[in-house]
């Protein structure tokens, strides 16, 4: 009987709970409104610059589902931003602003390239070794801004941005001087060994097993953040560092391992991207998936459970924009512009808490007037 009482509500009940709990419903509604607003703004921009706005708009909004090829591309595009989104969730739970995941992801891809080109290992083990090595390197890189912040109080955002430039140059140095394919005119590494690529999920498509790995990591990170002591410590240290310190939590250590885990996920994401999608390292510039991770984490309200959903949304926008720009006269970069707008809206606490504040004010007024009425009646009596 006792266990019956403490059991969690079932799926239907929890959905109903979600819709009746206004503290949860309102942010969700506002997130959806922010997404809708950004889409409308995108359409507005298309109409502003395109010579054939109707076709461009159709390609932008329906591109990802109009063609099977695009649909698979949509699923593939979700993979890297799921990884960076999860990593940013952890960092944001800690209330840090570091963007070092960008370096972790990029260097993860570089490390994976080195292993993919230089080592000969049996299939299965080869990508696994590459992913773990990339994760470790990514994790160590992730530590850097946190160390600077803890030891020297250096602003972690500023230092992580500096590191992102530094590691970008180091990464291209490694490719150009140690792994370059001299037969190529563009900057490209030598081709990977056959054993390095993870299998495709569906024949004749680009959809690779990295999709599964990303899904597994969504579960892992959810469990890590909400079901383990480490996750609890991260959340507590982020919510109130002073309280956490008084409660005996080593706040500095927590910040360090949180950044290591975030960097690890980023680095591993880079390796998955390499081994799933490419036959050689061919990035001409840093794809900057960490910035997408910021949006994914914010749309998901820092909750890893919602990361796949927000990754789907962002991937949909990107694939649509890509499809549209290749078939029309609107530059793909307009999606970056929209991403900035989405972050701006989601970052504004006042917009997010608008309904809540109104409700609280209403309740307070109500309580005030009842109290006054009671007092008046008391006076009359």
């Amino acid at each position, binding site marked *: 009987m006792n266990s019956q009482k403490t059991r969690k509500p079932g799926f239907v009940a929890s959905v109903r709970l979600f819709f009746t709990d206004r503290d949860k419903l309102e942010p969700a509604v506002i997130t959806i409104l922010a997404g809708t607003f950004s889409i409308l703004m995108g359409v507005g921009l298309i109409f502003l610059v395109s010579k054939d706005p109707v076709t461009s708009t159709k390609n932008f909004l329906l591109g990802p589902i109009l063609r099977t090829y695009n649909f698979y591309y949509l699923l593939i595009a979700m993979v890297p931003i799921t990884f960076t989104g999860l990593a940013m969730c952890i960092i944001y739970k800690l209330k840090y602003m570091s963007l070092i995941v960008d370096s972790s992801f990029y260097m993860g891809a570089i490390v994976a390239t080195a292993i993919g080109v230089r080592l000969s290992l049996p299939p299965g083990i080869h990508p696994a070794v590459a992913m773990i090595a990339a994760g470790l390197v990514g994790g160590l890189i992730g530590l850097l801004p946190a160390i600077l912040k803890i030891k020297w109080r250096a*602003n972690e955002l500023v*230092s992580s941005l*500096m590191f992102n430039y530094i590691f970008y140059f180091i990464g291209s140095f490694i490719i150009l001087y140690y792994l370059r394919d001299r037969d190529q005119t563009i900057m490209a590494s030598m081709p990977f060994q056959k054993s390095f690529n993870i299998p495709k999920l569906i024949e004749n498509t680009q959809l690779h097993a990295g999709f599964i790995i990303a899904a597994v990591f969504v579960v892992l990170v959810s469990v890590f953040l909400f079901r383990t002591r480490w996750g609890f410590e991260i959340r507590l240290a982020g919510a109130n560092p002073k309280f956490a310190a008084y409660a005996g939590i080593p706040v500095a250590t927590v910040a360090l391992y949180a950044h290591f885990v975030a960097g690890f996920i980023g680095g591993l994401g880079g390796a998955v991207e390499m081994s799933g999608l490419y036959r050689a390292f061919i990035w001409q510039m840093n794809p900057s998936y960490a910035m997408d991770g910021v949006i994914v984490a914010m749309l998901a309200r820092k909750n890893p459970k919602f990361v796949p959903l927000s990754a789907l949304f962002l991937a949909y926008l990107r694939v649509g924009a890509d499809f549209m720009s290749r078939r029309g006269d609107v*530059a793909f*970069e307009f999606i*970056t*512009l929209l991403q900035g707008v989405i*972050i701006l809206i989601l970052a*504004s606490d006042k917009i997010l808490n608008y309904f809540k504040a109104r409700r609280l004010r209403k309740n307070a007024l109500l309580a005030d007037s009842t109290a006054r009425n009671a007092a008046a009646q008391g006076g009359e009596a």
Partner: protein
Amino acid sequence: MIEFIVTVFTSSNYWFIVLRSTAPILLVTLGAVITEAAGIKNMALEGSMLWAALTGVIVSAATGSAWLGVLAGILSAVVIALILGLFALKLDANAVLCGVALNLFSTGGTVFVLFSLTGDKGISSSLASKTLPFIKIPFIENVPWLGKVISGQNIVLWLAVAAVFVIHYIMNKATIGRRIRATGENLEAAKAAGIDPDRIKFFTLIVSGVLAGIAGCFLSMGYTSNFTSGISAGRGYVANAAQVVAGGTAIGAIFASLIFGLTDAMATYLQNVGLPPELIQALPYFVTILGFIVVTLIRDRREAIRKKKLFEGKIDKSRFKSVISGGDAGSGASA
């Protein structure tokens, strides 16, 4: 190696490049200094520079006047700073996150606008944009070494030097400066003294926007003669690091931005000796982080020494004594 260093450091060309690459950093660093003094971090300086660089090019090409271009560029940079203020101050958003968002907005937005206008995503060379004048200084021009270093620099360098004095004056001599520092140091006290903190912060944001605007225009209309995508190359971020190195003062900003200028110029030279350009390009950012750490270390040590002295009673003892004895005397008199 030593010979190489000596040749570089005595070459007038090297110092010419140093000054040229210091100018934009100095301007944005001053912008970071003044907003930070008011207690708001302007991370959107990067975005301000990007829009200024693009708008400057477009307007100067359309009107044929470089100065109208600069004016429009400054306006666009100020608009970005004001948007940051709107979201960070009026809508309670995290200022740092807003800055990052605005930079993203600007990186994408500038390329989007450039492509929509010219059909090119990378460079604005199809626009016949103007450049800002380069100043030849009479007499000094003919001084052997010095003339080659400081004559023929772009007018923006001298604007940057003037900006140092203006910002120094604003922050230390003018009433508004006291208000800025009051807002930054103790918001509640400032409010109690009748200062509207949001107005002060908006003021500093506008000033930083103007400075970043001039710097941005310089990049596309002096440093180079085109707008290229991502032309600011992280200078707005570097400015935020340099602000720490500068210790939050306008004079300090000269030294902080000189560090960047020295390494940036050195990078151009080291490339000629056959060192890998990738690693050299990383050098300025690396040095900025180092400067960041060194300055905090020095400050911490100074702070520690000061505290230690205070505890041992080595400084200010006499002042404390006089206060105490004064108080005693007062109470004695009243008794």
